[in-house]
């Protein structure tokens, strides 16, 4: 089956800033694809070029088999999108918004069906400015689905939401996955990307620097494991510097953290050292490399910065 989205060598510049520098990726049918990157990495620019909100400076974009740069109106009939910065007029109601946007398409869902599906029936006739953040985001999702899209773009859908709303939205995206929808999701939340996406692409400074399934990215990476321990007596961290592969060593009395590329040998020698120093081990945690570790390893910066 042909890819739903094919982006090749996408380029976009804002004055001196090159936001997209040859971005290329593909999204397969029924796939949840995540575009992961920090703020300013170019992921929103990439998505906006794909859905027709911005005119790229160069590159090819094909959506659902249609040349998106030549036939943007045809593409818009087939896609839905929930944007990060979308808001509606203060006094428009969810029912009116769904009716209005549905009227723009050749084929659309009944407003009531969308209200039911996205749990907005109770607020169907409430003005937009009385909706909570989660309800607004659900309405944005409902609008993205109002035209029965083949492909949905979600630009940081959980950004700025409270934990409860965030969980609800993640559940909604998970349902899309089960329903076989094709979704492009941008996020700077690693946990979200790891939980929801079949495949992710890490974008940094306008380039895709890695792509694949989350577990493959972690497995392929040379990222180190992290070790943290708590001792019964304060211990000089310098004593641990000789352990195998130790780096990024930090300590604060009884609490010590470090990373190592050889966790097994390192922990064995740590036990010997503690016994020699007559210090008991109160707590020990060895954590495998995460997607964030992969990202830091690739870019040198943290997603959470």
């Amino acid at each position, binding site marked *: 089956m042909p890819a739903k989205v094919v982006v090749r060598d996408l380029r976009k510049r804002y004055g001196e800033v090159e936001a997209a520098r040859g971005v290329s990726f593909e999204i397969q049918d029924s796939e949840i694809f995540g575009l992961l990157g920090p703020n300013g990495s170019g992921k929103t620019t990439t998505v906006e070029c794909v*859905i*027709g*909100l911005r005119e790229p400076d160069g590159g090819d974009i094909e959506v659902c088999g249609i040349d998106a740069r030549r036939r943007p*109106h*045809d593409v*818009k*009939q087939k896609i839905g*999108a929930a*944007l990060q*910065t*979308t*808001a*509606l*007029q203060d*006094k*428009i109601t969810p029912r*009116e918004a769904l*009716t*209005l*946007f549905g*009227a*723009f*398409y050749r084929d659309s869902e009944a407003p009531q069906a969308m209200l039911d599906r996205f749990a907005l029936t109770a607020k169907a006739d409430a*003005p937009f400015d009385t909706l909570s953040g989660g309800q607004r985001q659900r309405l944005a999702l409902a*609008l993205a689905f109002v035209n029965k899209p083949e492909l949905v773009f979600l630009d940081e859908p959980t950004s700025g939401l409270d934990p409860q709303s965030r969980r609800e939205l993640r559940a909604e995206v998970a349902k899309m996955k089960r329903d076989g929808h094709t979704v492009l999701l941008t996020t700077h939340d690693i946990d979200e990307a790891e939980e929801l996406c079949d495949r992710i692409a890490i974008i940094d400074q306008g380039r895709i620097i890695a792509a694949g399934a989350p577990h493959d990215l972690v497995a392929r990476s040379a990222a180190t494991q992290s070790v943290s321990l708590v001792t019964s007596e304060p211990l000089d961290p310098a004593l641990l510097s000789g352990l195998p592969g130790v780096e990024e060593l930090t300590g604060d009395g009884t609490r010590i953290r470090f990373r190592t590329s050889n966790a097994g040998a390192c922990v064995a020698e740590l036990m010997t050292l503690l016994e020699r120093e007559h210090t008991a081990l109160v707590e020990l945690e060895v954590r495998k490399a995460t997607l964030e570790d992969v990202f830091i390893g690739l870019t040198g910066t943290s997603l959470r910065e």
Partner: protein
Amino acid sequence: MNGWLHQLEITLRLHFRNKMALLYGYLFPLIFLVAFWVLYRHERVPLARHMGELLTVTALGGACFGLPTAMVSERERGVWRRYRLAPVSTHSLVAGTVAARYIALVTAGLLQVALAMAVGMPAPRHPFDLWVAFTFVSFAFLGLGLVMAMMADNVPAVQALGQCIFLPMLIIGGIAVPLASLPEWAQHVSAFFPGRYAVEALQASVTGNGLGSARFDLLALVLVGASGCAAAGGMFRWDSQQRFAARGGKAWLALALGGWAAVGLIAESRGRIGAGDRAVPADQAIVRQPPAAAPTNAPANPLPATSAPPVTAPPAVTTPPVMTTPPTVTPGAPRVTTPPSRTAPSPETGKPAAPEPAAPVPDLPPTSEPRPTPADKPAAPEPRGPSSWQAVTPADIERDLVFDRLPSDQGVVTPIAPADEDPDPEVAEDLEFVRQSLPNWGPGKVADPVQRVRNYLYVAAVPDVFQIPVERHMAHVVYERLQEDIPKDQLIQILYWIALHPNGGDDSALDQVWALRLGNGPSDAEQTRERAAFYAVKLLGRLTGKIVPR
């Protein structure tokens, strides 16, 4: 189309849910109307003479504040970005927004007219024309509002831009301050603003002769609106992050400004600058014009008006032999001669003006600078017609004067109140003072009957130029006095003579209208002479039965 209609419907619904929009769009225009009603309470026909201004302010506010504020606010919130994701064209979305605003403007205008009628204003004389005029006015201002929406990066910027346009248009653009009250330079400036054309077109539909006399106004409004819409289309932006200063396409702004400039330049080239009866210049309104192809040396013997186009220019008027300056006339007009100085001989008789009367004349108040006279006007063909006022015949009147193109009695220029309309007490008191004073008024006693009639006509013309409350009734007082003082046959001849020779005689009487409590007299004597000529024809029409007041 389905999407367009839905967007129109939703935009209208949201407009009517917005309390601030209702306040500014509906309540404020009604407050303006009530304010005008209170300010001009002396008028027997309340508000009729101000509907052009009131409706223009309504359209201006709704189109140049309401529309861009709504559009910029929605753009800032990201609503237009969301619209852009839908498979719908920019033009369709903008057209829906503008159409909704137009409907809002029409409802606000209807409400204003309805309230005005509720407090006594008669129904507009040309309701269909009024709707057409209001549509043109809305189009012009909505085009301007779209340009503002594309220029302003945020809502406060809309307010700033709006004030930059709104206030000059109100003050020197012919909307809040009558053009007649503006200095000449401001009248020239106002020709470049769409406001004056809006007022003229609307007023012509409410109290005037309809849009037939406002074709240029409609053209001007279309030009301004079309250039605004085209420029806004070129500068359109969906996203508030696209700052105006950082975007290309600002050259489109030149197109919008070009529309205004073109309108002003056309008005200048057509001489449509000054105040007064702009649609029909005074000389064209009251004096029949020659056929366009008529040679300048056309036969002096004119054909009857009923069988052929009347000939305008009467035979050359005898120029007083003692005059040292050459006789001059206004271009295209059959006006004659240089208005003499206060001591110059009367052109009507060739004799020195009669001495001031023996009647007690209080100390004259200080007079202003000498009034400009039309003496330096370029020369034009001498008028033909009777050689003196005594030679005027009914055939001359029939041939040379037109009575159906005069400014409306209910209009701004040379108004005359219905005969059965009682003036307000304060106005009645002022009128009675004039009525009692006129028999002893010096300029009313000059020997030359033509000059005497001219002086009386100034008494009606001065309040008209000043737009003071007695203006609508003063013509009746003057008419009574003229009939008391001058035999009817002579009066008919003299009024004809003055109509064809508005610049004849002298205007020293203007310095004595203060004795009638009418101020010091306008500084623009030419405008006063023009108004006097209008009144001459209006009174002549009543005297001869050519005009039957309603």
